[in-house]
């Protein structure tokens, strides 16, 4: 692809960070799928050249996947996920949060607080902040302090009980009302139904891609998969879906040709824990550079965001909104919930159906819930004798040397296991 001249903006640290990661993604690996070109280009334009995407209607920022995007689309607005992955913003956001807190939240705050942030979020008429982890809870006041209008989406801290389910349904209904207030558009059955159909199409495209990763030898690498799902944060829904569908058709072709994107014996890794968000694809890249391949993930920047689909019995507004509420709460495996056997079961199922050899568990230092769940997940996996590597890290690049040692050692030990088994 042709790269335009680096703009003045391109000199900024954030852009250089993005640039180098993109180069790493594109150049250090051979035969990336043609279909990925769209996404590589998209990220260059958005993250390196600071282009702003044209949006339909007003923009509504979301700080978490819990905010039902179908509702936002239904009132003619566009959702933009504000979760940010750049070390630069992580540092600038440090003013708001204690040093030991989660990089993701800090980076998000940093981006929102900076003059002309990249990616260009533009004018945000509303920021929806689901009250998930403590740091996000506290963030909402700070975001408000920066002059944004914030809507707290009250999330129950347990999801099993019927009470919490109803409580969450109320929250979502209230959110829908708030949306119509902000946009001045009435939530209609037709619009919501159409919005749900669009998202469903995107989801089924994702699921196809997801299932294609089951095939061994691998058809494409995890870093690309993460890039695709990361693009979902800000890209236009239709365009994204089409891009993914073209990618899928290419991958299907690869499957018929028996194409290998990685060595046949390359350890298949299931990635879980804190979400890899561009440009912080440190860990997935390390894994795949050291000869492993990320075949599946259980993170809120990919699988958890797009996998679960909603079912509606009677296509009337009430039932649709409640169905959406259910889809955003019931299957969610975020560790903020008091009990979380679902996450264990989901991981075991993924490991089994994607024939993963090992699990890499990323926890952003400061993301306590992930740090806390590390042990129980590890036990559950080792019970099924699946090895897990627990990595506590953040956005800073300084531990890359040490991490590569660990990851290589992990991959080597997996290879040794496989050799022993065969």
């Amino acid at each position, binding site marked *: 692809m042709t790269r335009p001249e680096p703009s003045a903006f391109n000199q900024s640290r954030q852009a250089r960070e993005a640039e180098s990661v993109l180069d790493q993604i594109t150049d250090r690996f051979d035969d990336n799928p043609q279909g990925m070109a769209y996404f590589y280009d998209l990220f260059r334009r958005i993250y390196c050249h600071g282009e702003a995407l044209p949006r339909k209607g007003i923009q509504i920022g979301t700080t978490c996947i819990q905010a039902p995007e179908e509702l936002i689309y239904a009132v003619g607005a566009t959702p933009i996920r504000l979760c940010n992955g750049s070390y630069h913003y992580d540092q600038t956001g440090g003013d708001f949060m204690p040093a030991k807190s989660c990089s993701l939240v800090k980076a998000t705050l940093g981006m929102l607080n900076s003059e002309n942030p990249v990616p260009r979020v533009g004018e945000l008429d509303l920021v929806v902040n689901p009250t998930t982890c403590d740091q996000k809870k506290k963030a909402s006041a700070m975001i408000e302090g920066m002059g944004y209008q914030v809507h707290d989406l009250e999330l129950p801290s347990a999801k099993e009980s019927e009470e919490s389910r109803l409580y969450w349904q109320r929250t979502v209904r209230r959110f829908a009302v708030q949306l119509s207030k902000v946009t001045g558009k009435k939530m209609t*059955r037709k619009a919501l139904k159409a919005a749900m159909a669009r998202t469903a199409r995107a989801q089924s495209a994702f699921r196809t891609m997801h299932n294609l990763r089951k095939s061994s030898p691998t058809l494409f690498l995890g870093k690309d998969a993460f890039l695709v799902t990361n693009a979902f944060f800000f890209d236009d829904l239709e365009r994204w879906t089409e891009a993914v569908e073209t990618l899928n058709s290419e991958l299907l072709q690869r499957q018929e040709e028996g194409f290998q994107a990685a060595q046949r014996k390359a350890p298949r890794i299931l990635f879980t824990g804190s979400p890899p968000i561009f440009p912080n694809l440190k860990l997935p890249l390390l894994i795949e550079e050291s000869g492993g391949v990320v075949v599946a993930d259980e993170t809120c920047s990919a699988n958890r965001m797009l996998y679960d689909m909603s079912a509606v019995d009677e296509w009337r507004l*009430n039932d649709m909104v409640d169905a959406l509420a259910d889809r955003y709460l019931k299957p969610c495996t975020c560790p903020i919930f008091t009990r979380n056997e679902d996450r264990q079961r989901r991981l075991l199922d993924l490991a089994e159906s994607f024939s993963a050899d090992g699990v890499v568990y990323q926890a952003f230092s400061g993301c306590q819930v992930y740090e806390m769940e590390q042990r129980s997940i590890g036990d559950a996996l080792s019970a099924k004798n699946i090895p897990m590597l627990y990595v506590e890290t953040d956005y800073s690049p300084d531990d890359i040397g040490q991490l590569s040692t660990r990851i290589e050692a992990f991959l080597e030990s997996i290879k040794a296991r496989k050799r022993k088994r065969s």
Partner: protein
Amino acid sequence: MKKNIWQGTLLLLALCSQSVLANAPLWLSDTAPNDESAGHQHMSHGGPVERGKRGVFQKRLWVRSGKAPAEAAYVIPEGELSAQLIIPDKSQAKLKQSVKDQQAQLVFSMPDEGFYNAYLTQRIVDNNQLEITTAKAEVLKHSCREGHDHVKDLMPPNHLSDIPLEIVRERLPNENFHSRVAYGDVISFLVLAKGEPVSGAEVTLYTRSGWQNSSISDEQGHATFTIIRDYFPSWEFFESRHRQEFLAVAKLQRDETGSYQGESYSGVSYVATLPGAYFPSSRDYQSYGYGLSFGLFGLTFSGLSVYLYRRRRIRPYKEVRFDD
């Protein structure tokens, strides 16, 4: 043997029998004369029965004389008697005659489903009149265990073609083993002589309390009556399954000369009797009006309460609801 017994008792009853013969025809009733013999019985779809070996129904009929079924006397008939029985498959079968504590009885068992016809024919010559009385009873045997598929074929009534005069109750519209003759129903009788319909026979219907109504059989031998209500208990004692007997009597006078048992006669009077059961009509105690009003009440009450509940939930608690 039995015959001799009856002959023996004949003299004793000569007097009363005179009067009996004069105006009270014989008929066969399934109402027990006393509680003692009623004790053995239980109600079946075909009226009271006794249970014999292996649960086979036994029907016991008493010979009675008199018009109002309520008062008619239990008697031992005189004269020359012959008894016959047709079973559902239209073939003949034997039935037991006996006299037990001053009461003449007919007993037969009903193994198969359907209608059984019992006949008792009496011939007497009285001041050169030959009286031929045929007391007939039509008894239904049915138990639901046998199912209801066979009902249709068994419904049509049977008769004998060698009976001098016979009454046949014709079926009600779509009558089945469970249907009951009720107040207000119109029942129709067919009068047959030797199996052939006869016109001009005088048919009289006696209800339980003795109320009577007569009509003459038409060309096809039909005579129809409307059953009246003659059961007026106070509500606490009202019994919707209250069973009462009616009695139908047909008379036909013919000027035929001949001699019978050495006695000559110049006229023959044919008499046929047939009892039946009738019950209170459901119209007497069932009410659509109340039924519907209850139903509507339930409907509106519950519907309204749901509606109000929903309104309440929306208003004070600010429950968000969309209306589209």
